[in-house]
């Protein structure tokens, strides 16, 4: 039993952290907000150069040949610095799905998309559908900027050219996140693979999306906690640092606890996803529920600790907070994943849980847990 990164894995994460420290400052994120696509194509190239985009692409296709676990370590560091690029979409979920398709059904024929992902030549966006019945206009993050859009339903997977399926692109509240409305109905493409064999691949898409996003949320939560602690140590009221007041300390301690207890669950989910454990879906849901909860608490508390200045777009906090709000509901919100965990624990899903089929509509999650 060994739960946690070994020395090599810690080194990999540490190297990526140094990269983010240098290449992804708050000013860089603001520049990304102002850009056309919400992120930097130059930084994307550098992410490819240092190997991050190919972390879980097999070596035969020019990647590092590592697993979802290393990907989760990378995603946490990306979250800590609120990296704007669609790393989770392309390098975690996209590469994972392409890898599954390659291994299990022999699609796509090599050389193909996996090489392009690893080399930074392709952005891949992934969305999920409840059923293969064409659903009108679902929102898929980054599909507008993508070179390839993959859609996963329980019994079919499509690989689409964005030009054939994207009907509009909208900015999200977080300026780095652009959502494309993807209309399968208007696309004449046939699925690249369909039938019963798709089910496990589709479930893995949801699990991988939830897990990698959870990792990013842990990083975002840790980043916001750092900001709030630092501010509480500087800001003085009543003649003393506000961080010396217990009313502030206790709230920040609670954030630290929720973030610390989410992290091992993310490791667990990433490892069981990588080895295809029977509990992989439940582990992913445990991780996503905990990480969303932790990051939402971190954002809420950090905002409160900053007070009015935190409520401005001049303060950097909102760059992290808005990402956390978006990711907390992406790939299933807290409520969705709690229900999914409970459904996995009862042998005969009881009536209140019926209809919690997997996978899921990526963005059709209520935001009730937000505040």
């Amino acid at each position: 039993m060994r739960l946690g990164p070994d020395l090599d894995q810690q080194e990999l994460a540490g190297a990526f952290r140094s990269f983010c420290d240098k290449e992804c400052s708050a000013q860089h994120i603001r520049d990304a907000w102002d850009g056309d696509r919400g992120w930097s194509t130059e930084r994307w190239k550098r992410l490819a150069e240092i190997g991050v985009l190919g972390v879980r692409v097999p070596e035969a296709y020019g990647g590092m040949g590592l697993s979802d676990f290393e990907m989760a370590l990378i995603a946490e560091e990306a979250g800590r610095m609120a990296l704007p690029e669609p790393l989770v979409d392309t390098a975690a979920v996209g590469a994972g799905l392409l890898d599954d398709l390659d291994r299990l059904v022999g699609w796509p024929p090599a050389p193909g998309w996996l090489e392009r992902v690893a080399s930074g030549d392709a952005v891949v966006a992934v969305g999920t559908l409840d059923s293969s019945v064409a659903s009108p206009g679902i929102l898929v993050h980054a599909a507008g900027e993508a070179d390839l859009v993959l859609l996963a339903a329980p019994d079919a997977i499509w690989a689409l050219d964005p030009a054939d399926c994207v009907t509009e692109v909208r900015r999200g509240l977080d300026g780095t996140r652009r959502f494309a409305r993807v209309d399968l109905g208007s696309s004449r493409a046939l699925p690249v693979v369909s039938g019963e064999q798709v089910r496990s691949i589709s479930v893995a898409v949801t699990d991988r999306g939830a897990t990698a996003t959870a990792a990013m949320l842990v990083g975002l939560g840790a980043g916001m906690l750092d900001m709030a602690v630092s501010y509480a140590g500087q800001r003085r009221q009543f003649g003393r640092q506000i961080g010396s007041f217990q009313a502030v300390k206790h709230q920040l301690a609670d954030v630290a606890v929720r973030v610390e207890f989410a992290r091992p669950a993310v490791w667990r989910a990433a490892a069981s996803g990588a080895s295809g454990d029977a509990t992989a879906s439940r582990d992913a849901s445990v991780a996503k529920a905990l990480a969303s909860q932790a990051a939402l608490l971190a954002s809420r508390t950090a905002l409160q600790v900053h007070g009015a200045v935190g409520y401005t777009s001049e303060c950097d906090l909102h760059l992290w907070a808005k990402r956390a709000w978006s990711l907390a509901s992406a790939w299933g919100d807290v409520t969705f994943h709690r229900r999914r965990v409970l459904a996995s624990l009862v042998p005969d899903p009881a009536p209140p849980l019926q209809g919690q089929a997997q996978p899921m509509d990526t963005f059709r999650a209520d935001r009730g847990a937000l505040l």
Partner: protein
Amino acid sequence: MDLSFTPEQEAFRAEARAWLEANVPSVSRGTGPLPSLDTPEGFEAHRAWERLMFENRWSVVSWPQRYGGRGLGVMEWLVFEEEYWRSGAPLRVGQNGIFLLAPTLLEFGTPEQRERFLPPMASAEEVWCQGWSEPDAGSDLAGIRSRADRRGSDGWVLNGQKTWCSRGAYADWLFGLFRSDPDTERHRGLTYFLVPMDAPGVTVRPIAQLDGEPGFAEVFFDDVEVPVDQVLGEPGQGWEVAMATAGSERGLNLRSPARYTVAANRLVELWSEVASRDRDLAAMHADAVASAWIDAEAYRLATYAAATRLASGGKAGSEASMNKIFWSETDLAIHATALALLGAEAELLSEEGRPGDWMDGYLFSLAGPIYAGTNEIQRNVVAERVLGLPR
């Protein structure tokens, strides 16, 4: 990452499971459940159970063999705990000794003290209670006033009062903090003593807890003579020794995750039963049930991660305070949710006047955020020592 156990660990698990299944006091064998350990007959029944475990080398598997253990590591201890709670075995009447004092004895005790105290602690021949809190020193533990005065070259004399001593009504020994240097204040000048409860000058007054049973005691010391070899650590070093004990109390020594994962699984079973007859009620509480189960799972995984760090040479530190906040709130959430599912049924007392299992567990869980340093104290520790916020 390697989430599997070694063949040796799996064999150990199987051995533990088989022994527990054959020996745990049970209704079906007519040997259980044991009466509350806060009653005289319950206390002795729990002591007998501990003795049976000791005779079969199950009471302290992680201790060195010479003191009655098996010399196993932290992972094996976690495996044993999983099996222990899974089997429905009783609360450990010796827990203050075996989980809190023993690690401190192993760190600070002399070889003679370890030989003298550890084996009878493991067999529950000597059950220990904790003498820290005083009427005016609870969260502010450094404010204790009970005194230890040097008498001649070979002894000390204790005077003062300790309170809220769990199991103090029946315990054989007490480990406690006393102010040994009257000219000092706060954390300095304290000494950690090991005191027999039957020493002349010790008076015990049992106090009924929320369930009506005398789970607490206050203990009065009137010129109680204690020899120098019953000081743990150096005179004046008491605070440091006590904080080692507190680390064990807040961390994984006292509260292994299996306790909560077993309760959380029972909660899911209860929810499932409710769902089969009252769909609306189940739907209403589905979120709370899932959340409690997820938190218990988070504690389990965090413990394995911590054990992994310990196994690679890391040291447990202030994260014990994070643990304490997390397990105590998880325990409360599990039990409060069960009561919500049960409604008034949960309030009914047995013919003997005892609360039912879920209510009993709920009452116990309410103590969690208070003992071992209130959660407010833990939040201060996390804020100041982990996050570095100003004092």
